[in-house]
């Protein structure tokens, strides 16, 4: 029968075409993609969408920031004096530099230069860890002073802040990194001695990254040490501002007709009236809201830095294994984009938190 023959030929052709197509698949192309280009485009769109979700995730916090800054500008101006602009600025430079090394790594991967990629990614990781080290010094210093979020806020501007240079909190923050450092060092030595070069180099790189953290801690502590005498006078000057702000506040807020704020004003007013100015310091809990927002934003950012180090470690390992080629470098590019976003968020956080006027 002529028709059946035609049908068979048509469907056979469909099947044959499909099978001949399968042989073109390279080593790094997943089975469901047609080509390296399609795979790269999918990954690129995917990471951009992921970055959009990240921006929106932080967006909620930025909105909260805007609303409280609008409601209580005095609190924000007052509170930012407790943030160390120099350490914040140092961290900004460190992150900007890490974006440069990251971009360098991406370019090297595009050219298939795996060695340069590995070095650049390692530099990026060291910068990330250094950032965390400085941040740990900042955090622990604030915890010592009682500059804590919301209800936990217990900063007393008039008390003398005679605390150890290296606080217990800082030691606690260093412990996990210390353990990791020892582990990676041990891993590097053992593996390099037994001839497992790849994994040994990887562990070595990670140990250097952890050293970066301690370098950050060192810089931070040194800076704090040089600042200590000046810092106290700074605090004293500051206490006056706090008290003055409290005295003024009831007047400011009686003009405001929003119900919750009137309540606050009454509470504050009562507190100010009870506490004779100068003898016992009024504990302004609303300063705690600034630190709530500060810790939420910088904390979430720090979590992203840690996640970034994990992702970079993966890229670092694959660079050492020399897996990037001019037609396959997607993962470096995607992690790079993520890293630039983390950097960018800090670029916004720094002026919003540290440089308020």
């Amino acid at each position, binding site marked *: 029968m002529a028709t*059946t*023959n035609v*049908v*068979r030929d*048509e*469907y*056979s052709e*469909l*099947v044959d*075409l*499909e099978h001949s*197509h399968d042989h073109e698949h390279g080593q790094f192309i*997943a*089975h*469901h*993609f047609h080509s390296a280009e*399609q795979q790269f*485009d*999918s990954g690129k*769109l*995917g990471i951009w*969408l*992921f970055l*959009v*979700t*990240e921006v*929106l*995730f*932080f*967006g*909620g*916090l930025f*909105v*909260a920031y805007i*609303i*409280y800054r609008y*409601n*209580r500008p005095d*609190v924000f101006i007052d509170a930012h004096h407790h943030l160390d602009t120099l350490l914040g600025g140092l961290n900004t430079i460190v992150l900007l530099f890490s974006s440069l090394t990251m971009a360098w790594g991406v370019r090297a991967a595009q050219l298939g230069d795996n060695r340069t990629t590995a070095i650049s990614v390692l530099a990026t990781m060291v910068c990330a860890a250094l950032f965390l080290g400085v941040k740990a010094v900042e955090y622990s210093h604030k915890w010592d002073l009682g500059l804590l*979020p*919301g*209800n*936990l806020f217990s900063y007393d501007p008039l008390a003398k802040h005679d605390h150890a240079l290296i606080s217990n909190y800082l030691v606690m923050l260093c412990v996990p990194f210390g353990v990791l450092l020892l582990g990676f060092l041990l891993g590097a030595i053992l593996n390099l001695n037994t001839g497992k070069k790849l994994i040994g180099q990887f562990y070595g790189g990670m140990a250097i990254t952890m050293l970066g953290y301690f370098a950050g801690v060192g810089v931070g502590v040194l800076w704090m040490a040089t600042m200590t005498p000046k810092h106290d006078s700074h605090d004293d000057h500051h206490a006056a501002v706090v008290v003055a702000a409290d005295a003024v506040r009831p007047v400011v807020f009686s003009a405001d007709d929003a119900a*919750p*704020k009137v*309540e*606050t004003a009454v*509470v504050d007013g009562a507190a100010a009236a009870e506490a004779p100015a100068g003898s016992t310091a009024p504990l302004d*809990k*609303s300063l*705690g*809201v600034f630190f*709530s*927002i500060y810790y*939420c934003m910088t904390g979430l950012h720090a979590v992203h830095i840690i996640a970034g180090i994990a992702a970079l470690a993966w890229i670092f390992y694959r660079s050492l294994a020399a897996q990037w080629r001019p037609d396959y470098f997607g993962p470096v590019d995607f992690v790079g984009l993520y890293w630039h976003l983390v950097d960018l968020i800090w670029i916004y956080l720094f002026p919003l938190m540290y440089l308020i006027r």
Partner: protein
Amino acid sequence: MATVTQKQQLFGHAPTNHYLDASRGVMSWIFTLDHKRIAIMYMYGVILSLFLAGIFALVLRLELYTPGPWFLTSAQYNQMFTLHGAVMVFLFIIPSIPAIIGNFVLPMMLGAKDVAFPRLNLASLWLYWAGGFFFIVVLATSGLDTGWTFYTPYSTTTSTNVIAATLGAFILGFSSIFTGLNFIVTINTMRPKGMTWFRMPLLLWGLYSTSIIQVLATPVLGITLLLLIVERLLKLGIFDPAYGGDPLLYQHFFWFYSHPAVYIMILPAMGVISEMLGVHCRKEVFGYKFIALSSVAIALLGFLVWGHHMFTSGQSEMASLVFSAITFSVAVPSAIKVFNWLCTMYRGDINLSTPMMYIMSFIFLFGIGGLTGLWLGALSTDIPLHDTYFVVAHFHYVMVGGTMTSLLGGLFHWWPKMSGRMYNEPLGKLFCLLVFIGFNLTFFPQFIMGSLGMPRRYHEYQAVYQIYHQLSTIGAFTLGIGIFGAVMTLVYAWFFGRKASGNPWGAATLEWQSSSPPSFHNFEHRVIVSAPYDFSSVVYDESVDGYVPVVPKREAAPAPQPTPAPVSN
């Protein structure tokens, strides 16, 4: 004959070597990257959540049969309606259609082997389980009594397990984001040659719009719930007026996600309806472009109306006015869809199958649900109606009458593809009718008692409302039996149903060009892309007891003329 065997392999019922028996063992399921298996595992979780939350609903309805307290204390009653809402929203409705039907059908509609990121897809399934686990923790510990919205300041002060529930919802949010992200990338980069945007099946437009919302709105919910958790743990003060915080900010954050989330729930349902309608009316879908673009329009407008949940919360009148006006504008694309569906049915060759009955039931119920939404969007009528049973009836008409109806219809429609078996048609129709009647009996009286002033979430009520509550309770049990019967019909079909061919409905979209159930790689041949509702592109073939695609004749290039042999003399 070779041709018949080959055709049966490609387009018929696949007796062996399909995705269900490609590999065996529990591990081959838990660690699978196959979108079809992931869809099936999602289905277990989603249907289980439906039954669990459905049982909560029946307990509530039974308790409300009498005006006074019966067998629940007021605290238990609060827990019941909270868990009913939270489980239904986060574990059932939001994942339902995208995760089951979307995961199964979307790559196949594109003629692809899988979604763009199969591992991300598996991760989202695992996150779904992890989120579900936290809800089990809530059930096992001190419960939850905040309502599914977790409004502050109550949620920061109640002694129930708000942290576990919000953590669960947070994790489920990421599951939802990953699914959405995956779908957007898949649709953007993996369409086959010849399938332009406006030659895509309408389900894909619905899923694409849904995914946009999932990606843009869900992160905001994530950060909100995270703030709520930290607020409970550390007393941040951001939502607490005692520190200068603002509880209304929580409501703004929450509804900035949760209103668009309403469209996460309904847009895929609209997509499923649009998709099935053409097939079961055997007529090209009327106004294709309008249906497609109205999905996108709803997705975008959905971001601008969250304030209509807060008309009576004390937001400024100007804000309420603007939100109200934009709310009305959402009715336009919704109505465009309904008119186009009706026009598709008009003079169509309607095949009154079970999916078609669900379609008609959807259009009817969604019509009522949508139109009553206008009453609530109008500022003057919202003041007396807010927080009454009118609101409850309205969103159940949209969520249950809309989404659940179309989920069931979609499952019946794609069941032959998923299981390789046909369901029992009379039983399917019977339970569809039962669902329809039970649903209306449950929720229509709630419109009446709501407009008479019966507030929602009340444990006890005045005797005048009893008749409506009794009707509603009877209806709820009818609905419960209907849903249970429909699911059982499907389960029975999975094991004992008549074997289905690759394309029993004669649909023209690509997923029907595979065998039933599909092979591991979906297609054993290259797919033939045609217009999605061009029903002349398939012909009935007796040898496979179903439809097979018409292979287009290759006529583009003129046949090569025999070149005269060179004269060699």
